[in-house]
């Protein structure tokens, strides 16, 4: 039977929600809150077994951890060893994981393998389905780590982050991630070594706007059917990369000038590597990070970023100052593709027609950090 159900894993500042919808994407059944009052940064379903959910959590008081469920959230178990840096030698920098920010299931050939990105920047790997986590030393202890990650001022207001951990579906040894700040990095040996891959992407906040590393890639995605194609929504523009080329092309220059090409998320079509969606925000003067002009809109390109089309039918026409975080925009795998984004004001918006029209089926959640559309 073809997939006909969608699970929306919604992570908020005050707990987690599991929202179910069907192929019509008309009815949305909310299950939750799970862990009310906990700060949930990310939740993902394991596509390899179809029933394991991992959740990155902390509270205002308590340290960071990972929970996992094998029954779609009926019961949760805490990791035996959550991601954590090793105890520092005397005099060395004492790194502590403030929160787990990003979760990525590993390659299809490696059941049980997961990756986690943390704040401050760290990469962690689990080989037992998220029960125990070890640091990926090839990055966390890389001789250039300190240079790559910079100082505290190089991170987001909520701390510097490792995100967008991507595994090439053809080859589990090829991996990518983004550092905010720090840039995009690639490994060809499953994390044993890393190198920056930022040529062409700008860092307008530095004296040299085209450095080797130090950029702020807000979100990066790799197309599963064309894994040499990557898209990136950066602090300084929207980019595409078609490897083996290693120079990012600024496809955001084709966006309308009065909207610009600043934003947090980037979302891909599951079957068409040329289709991409972004959610522009105002990156002018003091960086309001809200919808430009108070008129929220999704922008879609059907030709890999050469031309962009505004998609705002159903969205408020004025005085709507949305912020959509980098993990809070997601696509399902149905046909036509369903799109979902959550705002920091707690509204979950949905489109059942690839962005042509939008409605808000779940308007009153807490501040939304992440939405992952998982197709069952």
């Amino acid at each position, binding site marked *: 039977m073809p997939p006909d159900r969608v699970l929306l894993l919604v992570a908020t500042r005050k707990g987690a929600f599991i929202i179910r919808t069907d192929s019509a994407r008309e009815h949305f059944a909310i299950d939750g809150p799970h862990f009310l009052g906990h700060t949930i940064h990310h939740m993902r379903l394991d596509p390899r077994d179809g029933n394991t959910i991992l959740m990155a959590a902390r*509270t*205002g*008081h*308590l*340290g960071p*951890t990972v929970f996992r469920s094998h029954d779609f959230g009926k019961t949760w178990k*805490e*990791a*035996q060893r*959550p991601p*954590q*840096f*090793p*105890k*520092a030698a005397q005099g060395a920098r*004492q*790194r*502590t*994981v403030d929160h787990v920010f990003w979760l990525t299931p590993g390659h299809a050939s490696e059941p049980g393998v997961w990756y986690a990105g943390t704040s401050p920047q760290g990469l962690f790997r689990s080989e037992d389905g998220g029960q125990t986590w070890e640091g990926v030393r090839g990055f966390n202890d890389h001789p250039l780590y300190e240079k790559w990650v910079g100082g505290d001022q190089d991170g987001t207001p909520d701390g510097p982050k490792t995100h967008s951990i991507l595994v090439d579906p053809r080859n589990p040894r090829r991996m990518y991630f983004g550092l905010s700040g720090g840039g995009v990095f690639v490994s060809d040996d499953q994390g044993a070594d890393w190198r920056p891959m930022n040529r062409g992407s700008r860092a307008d906040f530095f004296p040299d706007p085209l450095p080797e590393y130090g950029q702020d890639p807000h979100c990066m995605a790799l197309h599963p059917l064309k894994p040499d194609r990557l898209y990136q929504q950066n602090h300084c523009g929207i980019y595409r990369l078609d490897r083996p080329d290693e120079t990012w092309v600024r496809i955001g220059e084709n966006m309308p000038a009065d909207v610009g090409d600043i934003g947090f998320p980037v979302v891909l079509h599951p079957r068409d590597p040329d289709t991409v969606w972004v959610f522009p925000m105002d990156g002018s003067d003091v960086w309001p990070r809200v919808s430009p002009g108070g008129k929220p809109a999704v922008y879609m390109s059907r030709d890999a970023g050469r031309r962009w089309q505004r998609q705002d039918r159903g969205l408020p026409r004025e005085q709507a100052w949305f912020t959509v975080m980098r993990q809070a925009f997601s696509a399902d795998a149905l046909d036509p593709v369903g799109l979902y984004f959550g705002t920091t004001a707690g509204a979950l918006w949905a489109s059942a027609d690839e962005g042509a029209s939008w409605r808000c089926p779940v308007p009153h959640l807490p501040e939304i950090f992440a939405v992952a559309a998982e197709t069952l």
Partner: protein
Amino acid sequence: MSTGTVEVRLAALLHSYTRGARVVHAPGATLGEVFDALDERYPGIRFRIVDEQDRMRRHVRVFVNGADARDLATPLADGDKLYIVGALSGG
């Protein structure tokens, strides 16, 4: 140093670990040993309170017989009373 048993009074934010118990007892000659003992009995509880560099989490406070304690080497005596609470944090 002999190992005594201390009384540990836990704020509600930790009751999910102790299956609802507000007061538990644990052996230990130092604060660190008590946290180790608690973690053995209630897996995961230590890392929520103490980070990987053995520092108390920023928004957790521990009192020993009413006095603020932040060092895991803090010595404890049999019958001491520990109080673990969430400090101010919110919004």
